C-alpha cells in the first residue's frame, strides 16, 4: 500500500474542513464535563474513533463474522476489529469475500458482512454485490475510501465506489462524518435485511474512520419513509382466494422470496391443505420438499418437463416471491397463458413488471399465505367448490411426472455421468446438507438431481449467474452453519475462477467437500455452441486442465480423482470423511448435456428432451 493511502495525515485536515459546528461539538463532548455517557463497543471499550463506531455498529447489529481483505484505506476499520467481538475471515480475493458474505447471509437469514479497501478492493467486491442484488440476498459491504479531501482527484487507489455500486445496491452511503458513521452502518445493516432484502454499501473515507469521536452508533434504525408492508388488504385477499377456489388447475409457484420471508412452513401447509401442486423457481428450491407427491420440482429453462407442462397449463397461478425471470418464463407470450395470476410479493415494483398480475397481493409472504389460508374455506363455499375439484388436475400433474421422468442414460462405454455423481453424493449426506454451486452445466445437474427438502440448503448464483460462486459460498455457508455438512458442486471452468479461496478453507480448517464435475470445457457454452452455432466451439474447450487433486494438495487440502462408476461411492465417501476441505476431481462424460431445455425465449411446454428436439 502506498504511503499516502496509509498515512494518517488527513485527520487534521478533515477536522479543519468539517469546520464549524460538528467537530467543535465533538471535542466538547469528549470532556468529562459532559454528562452523557461515553459510547462503548460490545466488548466494553469506549468508542474513540469513527472506525470504532463502525465496528460497534456491526457488533450491535449482531454480526458475528466479517469476510474481507486488508488494504490502505480500510486500515483504520481493521485496526478497530483487532479488539472486536467479531471473527474476521481473511479471504484470498475480495470477490471471495462478497460471495462468502452473501452465502453466509442466505444461510443465516441475517445480512452477511464483507469488507475491502478502496479502489481495486471495492471494485473486486462488485461482482458479489451485483450477485446479491439480483438474488435479493441480505449483504452489507464496507469499503475504504481515500481521505475526503482527495475524493474526486484520482488519488491513489481511488474509485467512485458510490457511483459504481449505485445500480447494484439497495442503498449506498458515503460516510462523511465520524460522528454519524456508526448510525449509517447501523442503518445500512437494518436496511439490507428489511422488506425485500438486498445489498447495501457504506463507503468509508479514511479521514472519517480515523477521526476522533466518542459518539457510538444509535440503535440501527430503518431510514425515514422506508415502509415494509405486512399483510395485504382483505378484499384483495378475498378476490385472490375466490379465483383460486374457482380454478380447476391451480398451481403454486414458490420463489426465492418464500425463503427470504421464512414462509416455507406456511407455503407447505397451504399447498398440502388445499391439494395444490407446487413448482418452484430455481432460487425457490427447498421451499417445498421435492420428495412430496405435490412437488413438481422446479420450472424454467432446465426445469423438469412436468413442472413446465404444469406451468403452461395452469388456469390459476399462485406465484409467491418471484420476479418472473426470463429463465423461468421463457417467452412471455407463452408463459402460463391461460392462468389468472395471483402475485404475492413484498416489493410493489415487482407487480406486473414482467407478467401481469390479475390479483396483486403486496406484503410479507408468510402473512399473506396465512391470510389466504383463512379465507379459503369461505371462498370454496361461495364458489361451491372444494379442493376435491382439483383432483383431476393433480392426476394430470402426476401423469406428466410419469410421462417425462427425469433420467439420464448411463452406457458402460462412456465416462461417468455427472448426474450419477450428484445422486451418489446426495445419498451419502444428511437431508439438511447445504449445497453450493458455481454456474454452468454442473449447477443445473446439481439442482436437477439432488433432492432438496429444506429451505436455505441450495445456495447458488441464480440471477447474475456468476461463475466461481461455489467455493467462496461454501466457505460462507460453513461459517454460518459449522455443524451442517456443506458440499460444493463446481465446474472445472467455474472452479478455476475462485479456487484461490481453497487457501482460506484450509487456513480456517473448514470441513467442506468440493466436487468438480470436470468436462474440460465451459460446458454450458459448449452445449449452446453445438446447438445454435453449428458446433463452432470457439473458446469453450480448455484442452488442458490442471490436476485439481494435486492442486488441492498443494493448497493443503485433500485431493481425490474420480473416473469410474465403481469408484464413485467410495471416493465421495472418503472426501466426506476427511475432516477438512477436500476436492474431488470428477472426470465426467465431456459430451453430456443438460436437458430438458427450453430454448431462450421459447415456450415452456415445448422443452427439448435432447439436442435433436431443439
Amino acid at each position, binding site marked *: 500500500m502506498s504511503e499516502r493511502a496509509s498515512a494518517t495525515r488527513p485527520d487534521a485536515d478533515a477536522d479543519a474542513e468539517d469546520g464549524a459546528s460538528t467537530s467543535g461539538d465533538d471535542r466538547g463532548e469528549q470532556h468529562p464535563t459532559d454528562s452523557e455517557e461515553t459510547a462503548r463497543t460490545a466488548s466494553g471499550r469506549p468508542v474513540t474513533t469513527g472506525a470504532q463506531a463502525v465496528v460497534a455498529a456491526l457488533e450491535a447489529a449482531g454480526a458475528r463474522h466479517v469476510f474481507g481483505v486488508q488494504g490502505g484505506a480500510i486500515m483504520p476499520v481493521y485496526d478497530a476489529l483487532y479488539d472486536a467481538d467479531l471473527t474476521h475471515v481473511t479471504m484470498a480475493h475480495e470477490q471471495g469475500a462478497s460471495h462468502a458474505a452473501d452465502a453466509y447471509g442466505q444461510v443465516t437469514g441475517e445480512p452477511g458482512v464483507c469488507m475491502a479497501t478502496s479502489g481495486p478492493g471495492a471494485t473486486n467486491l462488485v461482482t458479489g454485490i451485483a450477485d446479491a442484488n439480483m438474488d435479493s440476498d441480505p449483504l452489507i459491504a464496507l469499503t475504504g475510501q481515500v481521505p475526503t479531501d482527495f475524493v474526486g482527484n484520482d488519488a491513489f487507489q481511488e474509485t467512485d465506489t458510490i457511483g459504481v455500486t449505485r445500480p447494484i445496491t439497495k442503498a449506498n452511503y458515503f460516510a462523511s462524518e465520524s460522528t454519524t458513521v456508526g448510525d449509517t452502518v447501523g442503518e445500512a445493516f437494518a436496511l439490507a435485511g428489511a422488506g425485500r432484502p438486498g445489498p447495501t454499501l457504506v463507503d468509508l473515507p479514511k479521514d472519517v474512520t480515523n477521526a476522533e469521536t466518542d459518539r457510538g452508533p444509535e440503535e440501527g434504525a430503518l431510514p425515514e419513509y422506508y415502509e415494509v408492508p405486512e399483510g395485504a388488504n382483505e378484499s384483495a385477499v378475498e378476490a385472490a382466494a375466490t379465483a383460486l377456489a374457482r380454478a380447476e388447475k391451480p398451481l403454486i409457484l414458490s420463489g426465492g422470496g418464500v425463503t427470504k420471508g421464512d414462509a416455507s412452513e406456511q407455503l407447505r401447509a397451504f399447498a398440502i391443505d388445499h391439494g395444490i401442486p407446487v413448482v418452484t423457481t430455481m432460487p425457490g428450491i427447498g421451499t417445498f420438499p421435492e420428495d412430496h407427491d405435490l412437488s413438481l420440482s422446479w420450472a424454467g429453462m432446465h426445469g423438469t418437463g412436468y413442472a413446465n407442462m404444469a406451468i403452461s397449463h395452469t388456469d390459476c397461478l399462485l406465484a409467491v416471491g418471484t420476479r418472473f425471470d426470463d429463465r423461468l418464463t421463457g417467452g*412471455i407470450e407463452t408463459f402460463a*397463458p*391461460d392462468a389468472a395470476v395471483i402475485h404475492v410479493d413484498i416489493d410493489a415494483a415487482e407487480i406486473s413488471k414482467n407478467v*401481469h398480475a390479475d390479483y396483486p397481493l403486496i406484503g410479507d409472504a408468510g402473512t399473506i399465505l396465512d391470510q389466504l389460508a383463512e379465507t379459503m374455506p369461505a371462498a370454496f363455499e361461495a364458489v361451491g367448490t372444494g379442493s376435491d375439484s382439483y383432483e383431476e388436475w393433480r392426476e394430470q400433474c402426476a401423469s406428466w411426472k410419469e410421462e417425462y421422468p427425469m433420467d439420464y442414460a448411463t452406457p458402460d462405454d462412456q465416462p461417468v455421468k455427472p448426474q450419477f455423481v450428484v445422486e451418489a453424493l446426495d445419498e451419502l449426506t444428511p437431508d439438511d446438507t447445504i449445497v453450493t454451486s458455481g454456474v454452468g452445466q454442473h449447477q443445473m445437474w446439481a439442482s436437477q438431481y439432488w433432492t432438496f427438502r429444506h429451505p436455505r440448503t441450495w445456495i447458488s448464483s441464480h440471477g447474475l449467474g456468476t461463475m466461481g460462486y461455489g467455493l467462496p459460498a461454501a466457505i460462507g455457508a460453513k461459517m454460518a452453519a459449522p455443524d451442517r455438512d456443506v458440499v460444493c458442486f463446481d465446474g472445472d471452468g467455474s472452479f478455476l475462477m475462485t479456487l484461490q479461496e481453497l487457501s482460506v478453507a484450509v487456513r480456517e480448517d473448514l470441513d467442506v467437500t468440493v466436487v468438480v464435475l470436470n468436462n474440460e470445457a465451459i460446458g454450458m457454452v459448449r452445449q449452446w455452441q453445438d446447438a445454435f452455432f453449428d458446433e463452432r466451439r470457439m473458446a469453450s474447450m480448455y484442452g488442458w486442465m490442471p490436476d485439481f487433486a494435486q492442486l488441492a494438495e498443494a493448497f493443503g487440502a485433500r485431493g481425490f480423482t474420480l473416473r469410474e462408476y465403481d469408484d464413485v461411492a467410495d471416493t465421495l465417501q472418503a472426501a466426506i470423511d476427511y475432516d477438512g476441505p477436500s476436492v474431488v476431481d470428477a472426470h465426467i462424460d465431456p459430451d453430456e448435456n443438460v436437458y430438458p431445455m427450453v430454448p431462450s425465449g421459447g415456450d415452456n411446454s*415445448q422443452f427439448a428432451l435432447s439436442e435433436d428436439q431443439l
Partner: protein
Amino acid sequence: MSSDSEGDGERSTDPDSVPRKGLQGPRPGERTRPHGRRSGQGIRIDPQAEATHQPRRTAISALVKNEPGVLAEVSGLVSRRQFNIESLTVGPTTNPETSRITLVIEEPDPGVRQVERQLEKLLPVISVRELGTDAVRRELVVLKVHGDRPDEVNAITQMYDGRTLDAGPRTITVEITGDEQKIDDAIDAFRQFGIRELARTGQTALARGDEWTTHAEEERYEQLRSETDPTPTTADD
C-alpha cells in the same frame, strides 16, 4: 435420496442397476398446448377485446429529499430501465429539505406504473404520483436570435407573451413561458430571424386546484398550519 420417495423407483445410483434410458416422453409437437397467449407486456390477451397498450405521454411528480446524488439516482434508474423519458426538471420546494422532480415520460400503462414503483423504491424518494391530464404544466425557453430585425422580433415576443431579456446590436435574447405546444409554436415563429441558440427547461407541473401534488406535502402543510395557527379549527391539540 431413498428411491421410494422419488415416485419412479428407478433412480438408484447402484451401478449394477444401470443402464438407464435417458429422458423420455412425447416430442414437443406431440404435446398438449395451452390455448391462450400474452402480450409482450405479460398481459393475458382476451380474444374478445384484444388489449393493445399504446404509449401515452404523462407527467410524474416525485418529492425527493434534497441531498447529493438524488438526481444521479433518478436519472440512472430511468436510463438503466430504458424508460422513454421526454424531460426531467428538478428544483427545491418550500421545504429546504425536499426537492420536486417532474418527469415527462412516454410509455404504455404498465411502463408508467413501473416508473412510479421503481421511483418509489429509491431511498431518497418520499412520494411519487402521476399527474392528471388537467395538471398545470409549464415550460420555459430562452432563445437568442439575430438582432437585425428588432421590431419584428419584439412583435413576435409580445404575441407569445414573452419578455426581452437582452437586446444588443447583433443579438436579441427573449424568454417564453407556456405549455409545450406554445413553446414549440414560438420557436417556430422565431426561426425566421435565425435562432443562434436556445435552452428549454422541460415541463414542470403541479396538480390543479385543491388537489395536492403529493401527499407528503399535504401532511407537512397541515402540520405547519396547525403549529402557526393559534385557533385550530379541528379538535386536535
